[in-house]
């Protein structure tokens, strides 16, 4: 462990357990934690206090309609379960999300595209490997300084593809990366995935037929109905 690096990071422990570090600082601190047992011990110690904070709030009773709304969705999910083909079952192993209202998705798509273009995403490169097509992913270099990756699409676009990314920032405990498809002006939620300590990630992307762009955003765990920010990864098809 580098003493200098420890000195730099030890003051961040409180902000880390309170979730008050910026994304970039969080990534650096998590990397530091892997090699610094002193800071790890300090995080464990202070986490006890941070975990007590939500218990200080005035206890309220959740509104009745909240339970009705949630259990209504749960029951609907259960009803939708039905015997399916092996291929469908594999796709269904991806986290499921509710449909995105078209209006919301269209507006969000426009915002994402503008931000993506202004943000300086480079053009993707396409390599045609006969049965497969490999499209190089573009990264928002402000947020993913050393990202690389590609989307490998099968010979038949409807069969989907595989998105590989490297050098992605680490996620907070309750975050996920989420894939989105842009098609006909709509942004459609797709799979969620996490990355390894080295920032490597891999996920299947289904239903690419007619898709114009595949994007990745950082979202709260469980995913979102529409992107909550501009993409960190973009693959133009």
């Amino acid at each position, binding site marked *: 462990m580098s003493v200098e690096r420890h000195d730099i990071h030890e003051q961040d422990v409180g902000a880390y357990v309170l979730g008050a570090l*910026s994304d970039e600082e969080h990534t650096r601190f998590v990397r530091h934690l892997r090699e610094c047992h002193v800071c790890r011990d300090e995080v464990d110690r202070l986490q006890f*206090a941070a975990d007590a904070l939500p218990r200080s*709030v005035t206890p309220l*009773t959740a*509104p009745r309609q909240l339970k009705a709304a*949630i259990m209504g969705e749960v029951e609907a999910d259960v009803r939708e379960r039905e015997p399916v083909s092996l291929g469908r079952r594999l796709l269904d192993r991806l986290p499921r999300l509710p449909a995105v209202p078209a209006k919301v998705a269209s507006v969000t798509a426009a915002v994402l595209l503008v931000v993506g273009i202004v943000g300086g995403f480079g053009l993707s490169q396409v390599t045609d490997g006969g049965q497969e097509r490999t499209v190089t992913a573009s990264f928002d270099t402000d947020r993913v300084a050393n990202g690389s990756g590609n989307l490998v699409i099968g010979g038949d676009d409807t069969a989907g593809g595989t998105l590989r990314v490297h050098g992605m920032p680490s996620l907070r405990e*309750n975050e996920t990366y989420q894939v989105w498809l842009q098609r006909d002006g709509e942004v459609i939620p797709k799979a969620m995935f996490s990355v390894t300590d080295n920032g490597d990630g891999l996920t299947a992307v289904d239903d690419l037929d007619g898709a114009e762009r595949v994007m990745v955003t950082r979202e709260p765990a*469980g995913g979102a109905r529409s992107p909550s920010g501009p993409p960190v990864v973009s693959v133009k098809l």
Partner: protein
Amino acid sequence: MANLADEEIMHLVQEGDPRAFELFYDRHAGPAFSLAYRMVGNRTVAEDVSQEAFLSIWRSKLRYQADRGSVRTWVLGIVHHRAIDALRRNTVHDKRRASAEGIEERFEARERTDVEVARRDEALTVRAALEDLPDEQCRVIELAYFGGFSHSQIADQLDMPIGTVKGRMRLGLDKLRKTLLRDPEPV
């Protein structure tokens, strides 16, 4: 099923058992909604945050890891994260104070059960420990945890160096920990 421990209920939830999920909801909805409301200060947004949190647990089968704390702590962590997302996405900060009146009287849990009495006692204990902190330490902790502000935003708001904010967070949490360990420990 009602006698199962939280950890056992979570196992059934992760297998997609809707009755287990309902029991899980009944046990944790009150604290989850209370935290969401404390953070966003708006009933509708608090309901949205709670709903998103519970449905994300149901749909994505988020993995609960027993070695990282209780089920309650895990659920509240997810709610906290969703509430911060709502605060940053919807500028709820501006609305919260204007719409906060009245709800606590209408939805405050009545002391009908032992569980509710325990929740109220626990809240009083932790709040007393927070109030025992020096004001400047309590303020930065509350702005960060309940307000969802980053340390640099807090430094801007309070017009103080970032290093001072970080130091106060750390000192405050350390003192809070020591106080809580002296007093009855939160469940």
